[in-house]
């Protein structure tokens, strides 16, 4: 099955619900859509987060996301994939990322959305700077993100 892949990097806020509704309208063969929205957390430990600033490498980051989507499309029978990723300065509760996967049946849609998020979290060229109490901090990669990604390699074996 050829999978339609739509990747958008947005400098401005986006509406995940409207995007999902638009995504559903493009479908003709699917019976299942799994969508995940990531939002800015208001707290980091005991500290209140004021803003989160995301940067990317224009062109390169999109290429990486496209490669992740293509791998997912080879692994599961998908009709369509949608990835919308914010960059720029965001406030708590604002959407950062939306992934949506559409397939004939639910298992493939759930797994593909989960897979996309794990790879986006560990492999995609995004850098995050969090401002807490007026001070900016770069966010380091988390060991959990690599462990989450590793789950998919194990199930290949």
């Amino acid at each position: 099955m050829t999978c339609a892949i739509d990747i958008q990097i947005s400098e401005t806020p986006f509406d995940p619900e409207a995007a999902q509704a638009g995504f559903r309208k493009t479908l003709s063969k699917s019976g299942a859509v799994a969508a995940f929205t990531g939002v800015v957390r208001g707290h980091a430990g005991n500290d209140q987060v004021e803003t989160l600033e995301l940067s990317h490498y224009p062109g390169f980051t999109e290429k990486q996301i496209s490669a992740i989507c293509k791998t997912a499309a080879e692994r599961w029978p998908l009709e369509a994939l949608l990835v919308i990723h914010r960059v720029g300065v965001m406030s708590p509760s604002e959407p950062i990322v939306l992934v949506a996967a559409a397939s004939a049946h639910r298992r493939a849609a759930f797994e593909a959305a989960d897979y996309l998020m794990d790879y986006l979290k560990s492999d995609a060229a995004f850098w995050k700077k969090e401002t807490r109490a007026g001070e900016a901090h770069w966010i380091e990669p988390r060991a959990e993100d690599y462990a989450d990604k590793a789950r998919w390699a194990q199930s290949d074996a």
Partner: protein
Amino acid sequence: MAKLLFFGRMSDIEADRDVDLPQGVSDTDALIDWLSADNPVFADMVREKGNSLVVNQAIVRGATPISNADEIAFLSPVSGG
């Protein structure tokens, strides 16, 4: 002119810019040495684990030939999407 780009932590200590590569700076190792000579903080940071070096939007490993026609990007470890 070669285009130099810096992402993540490295963008705090080096500015994106177009440069004329001096004679002798013909691969990425020589470029790192050349930039390190002027910026000891960069010299330490560029040797940390988890960085990536990207030439013309493709990840490279080890000394890679470069010229004034190239875009060279230094990527600090990614934070994840």
